[in-house]
């Protein structure tokens, strides 16, 4: 039975060993290293001698704060995935369907003056955040990024599988990231459909898989979009306002 399940999951995830490795949960302390072409592009701006303003909307990372402040930049940190698990956000739409209140969410989060940031590090937020918040969050991010500013986001490919672990990302080099498994800080609530959709064993779960067209639509207000394909079933996307 186990071998049948294994074979099925192998089919689902594809034959690459990278994907199997990516899907295997790792302990909180363990960190995996990966190269990031998207980060490599962002690093050109980070090497600027002029202080720039960076927004990191992933899990609080001391490594990222150190990396950026050492270079004289200002960093804003805000864990949007964690914030989206606030039970107070649950509401119903006109059809009586349970959703998350995006207005309330944006009243408490991403509250910055317009056109403030040179770089936004979005990481894998869109893949793990509740669907009702993704578009409003991207629209708000657009308004907070300076013209010419960049946003770096990661999207899983279908081959990553539904149980692709949620990682936090630490910048350790110009194009090198460390990945660390994310564990939710509070007990995660049931999702809009009634299923526990955001968490399994206190960890976040992949909500959906965006294809390239979905990603282009999501970022249609931005000036340009660039895709980087990687071997670990992640598409890195760099968009410029």
């Amino acid at each position, binding site marked *: 039975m186990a071998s049948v399940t294994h074979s099925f999951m192998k089919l689902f995830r594809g034959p690459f060993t990278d994907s199997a490795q990516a899907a295997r949960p790792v302990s909180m302390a363990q960190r995996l290293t990966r190269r990031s072409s998207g980060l490599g592009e962002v690093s050109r701006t980070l090497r600027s001698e002029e202080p720039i303003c960076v927004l990191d909307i992933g899990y*609080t990372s*001391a*490594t990222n*704060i*150190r990396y950026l*402040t*050492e270079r*004289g930049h*200002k*960093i*804003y*940190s*805000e*864990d949007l995935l*964690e*914030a989206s698990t606030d039970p107070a956000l649950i509401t119903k739409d006109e059809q009586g369907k349970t959703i998350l209140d995006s207005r309330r969410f944006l009243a408490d989060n991403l509250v910055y003056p317009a056109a403030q940031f040179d770089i936004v590090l979005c990481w894998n937020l869109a893949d793990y955040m509740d669907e009702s918040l993704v578009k409003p969050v991207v629209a708000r991010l657009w308004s907070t990024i300076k013209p010419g500013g960049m946003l770096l986001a990661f999207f899983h490919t279908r081959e990553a599988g539904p149980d692709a672990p949620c990682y936090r990302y630490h910048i350790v080099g110009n194009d090198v990231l460390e990945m660390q498994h994310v564990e939710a*800080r509070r007990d995660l609530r049931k999702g809009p459909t009634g299923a526990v959709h955001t968490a399994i064993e206190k960890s976040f779960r992949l909500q959906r898989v965006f294809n390239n067209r979905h990603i282009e639509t999501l970022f249609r207000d931005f000036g340009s979009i660039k895709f980087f394909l990687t071997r670990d079933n992640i598409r890195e996307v760099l968009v410029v306002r």
Partner: protein
Amino acid sequence: MDMPKTGEFAHIGKSVVIKGELSGSEDLYVDGTVEGTIQLHGNNLVIGPNGHVHADVNAKGVVVQGKLEGNIRATDRVELRKSAVIVGDIVTQRIAIEDGAYFKGKVEIQKEAKPNRTEQQSDAKSGSAPVASGAAAATSSTLSSGTGSLGAAAPGTTVTKQ
């Protein structure tokens, strides 16, 4: 950081609630609730694991183990322990953040100001710590989990209730 020994810090216990302006010239340990402002120029503040501070903080060093909602301005260093929950902006020379700490806000590192004679003299007169002005020697944020030595106490903490 371990619980400071009695006598080293002025201590606000976990059942104490203070609303208003809190200022002083000795190190302070807050394990209760404070709403308002905390001014400890040249001295250190430790917010204990039960501490709940809703205030802007101005101090030499700040260690957070509990919850802080407000801005921190520290002339020396800020340490956020793994149990810390901070919502607000931090301006400091050095910062240490333990894995697991929750932080929402801005971090701005101010480089250490070269002390000149005029500043030292005026500080000695006023008894307050100098505020870093972003010149001189380059310092970087350090991410260690060291405890940092927090100085000896001197009398003079005042609480102004609103």
